[in-house]
């Protein structure tokens, strides 16, 4: 709670800078509009008020985004194609399916890598190297390949979300399974524990903090994957499709509203995992 005041100050400062920037960026456009309307008697106040309430501003003012959000989230029926609830739900489904599939795959792969020696030596360098590759570039192609097999709609985007989130989870979980103290591993050996017992009773519990940390990264990556995938196949809807549609038609306010919905979804997902992680870790005695 000590940091509530500093955070509030910084947020307020950002809002203030935002308003100034919006006024400055939009003023030339507004001046043109006044000129086109034949108005020459406008005051500076009119100019500022006008540039903060334009229909298609360069940078919409925060209150415009809020009112657009209200309009598209609460005032529009969730079944309408304009509603951000409709598109957000599509994106959320893709993200969650992809996240669960990718998370399971990532953990399974990590278990395999930790328990089979030659797999680690041969695969780990590739998995690490794959981190340096912009994998997201594969997204449009995966959508096309899957549509060859008549897999359309939510599934291809969930596949991309899964694909993007499983690498960080595998890397994090391998680290987690290797995190027990050598002394503890020796202790398991003196108990003559089998490999499976060591894994279940020592390695798996020890990896809990790594599990939640990599799940947070994975959830954020899954959402990015889903949004980028929607850009490449925008007729199915979703936050990414709204971003693309907004950029086609110059609807800046709509782009920003979609962006904020995406940001909120990411924040809620990561926040939920963080809370679950804290609860579990406290229960297990990692946090005091």
């Amino acid at each position, binding site marked *: 709670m000590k940091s509530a005041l500093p955070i509030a100050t910084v947020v307020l400062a950002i809002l203030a800078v935002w308003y100034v920037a919006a006024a400055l960026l939009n003023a030339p456009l507004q001046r043109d509009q006044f000129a086109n309307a034949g108005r020459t008697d406008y005051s500076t106040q009119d100019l500022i008020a006008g540039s903060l309430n334009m229909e298609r501003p360069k940078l919409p003012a925060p209150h415009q985004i809020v009112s657009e959000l209200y309009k598209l989230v609460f005032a529009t029926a969730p079944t309408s194609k304009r509603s951000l609830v409709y598109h957000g739900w599509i994106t959320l489904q893709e993200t969650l399916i992809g996240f669960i599939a990718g998370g399971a795959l990532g953990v399974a792969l990590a278990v395999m890598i930790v328990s089979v020696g030659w797999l680690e030596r041969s695969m780990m360098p590739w998995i690490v190297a794959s981190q340096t*590759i912009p994998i997201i570039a594969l997204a449009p192609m995966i959508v*096309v390949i899957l549509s060859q097999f008549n897999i359309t709609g939510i599934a291809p985007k969930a596949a991309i979300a899964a694909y993007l989130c499983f690498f960080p989870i595998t890397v994090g979980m391998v680290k987690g399974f290797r995190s027990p103290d050598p002394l503890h591993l020796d202790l398991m050996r003196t108990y003559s524990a089998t490999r499976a017992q060591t894994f279940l009773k020592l390695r798996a519990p020890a990896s809990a903090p790594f599990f939640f940390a990599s799940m947070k990264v994975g959830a954020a990556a899954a959402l990015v994957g889903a949004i980028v995938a929607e850009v490449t196949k925008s007729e199915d809807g979703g936050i990414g499709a709204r971003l693309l549609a907004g950029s086609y038609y110059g609807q800046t306010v709509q782009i920003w509203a979609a962006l904020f919905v995406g940001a909120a979804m990411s924040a809620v997902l990561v926040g939920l995992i963080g809370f679950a992680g804290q609860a579990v870790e406290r229960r297990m005695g990692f946090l005091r």
Partner: protein
Amino acid sequence: MIARRLGPLVPPIVFGAAVLALWEAVVRIGGVPQVILPAPTAIMARFFSSLPTLWVDLVQTMKGVLAGYTIGSAAGLGVAILIDRSQFLQRGLLPIGNFVSALPIVGIAPIMVMWFGFDWPSKAAVVVVMTFFPMLVNTVAGLESAGAMERDLMNTYAADYWQTLLSLRLPAALPFIFNALKINTTLAMIGAIVAEFFGTPIVGMGFRISTEVGHLSIDMVWATIVVAALTGSLFYALVAGVERRVTFWHASYRAKEA
């Protein structure tokens, strides 16, 4: 000696070669159509036959990547040093920095394309925003990492703030700064390529991928991805190499020598 040094490289190379061979075999024997999955040999053939196009795309994309990477990382470092003296600003900015790192920042691409036009500056702008926060958060953590003993020593030398910063705290922060620089190489490539999905002059790796997918020439897409993968790895290796030279004193490198 040489055999021992190359020894660890053998399993991954064998594994990689096996995957490629399996891929080739599945495509040839299974008769997988070209539009779904081209064989590795077909991709290599396409790669070498369209080198000029791939090169022009690479140059276009790398303009955005390098400009954005430099500006974003430098700005992150600069702001971290600026807020270093103010606990208040740190406590306000760090949670926001961590929060922003979890957001789908690539979504700002359409806005940047509107502000800075279709050419590479808009891609650089996306990369600036993506690379700024990891650098900020890491540098602030790094500046805190100098030990209390060393700080006391600087105090007994009567070193002022800037002397302590330059000769103790910044060097101590280098491993953290390089960590951010390494993370940022990948983020920069992703940012630039995805930003090109939203509009670009008729050149660039992201543009090539999205148009060739439309033409169903998947081998060209794979060739572009090979270029992206090679560039991304080289970029990362370059930064890691500089890190090894500059932070040779750090425990993670010393341990390997012994």
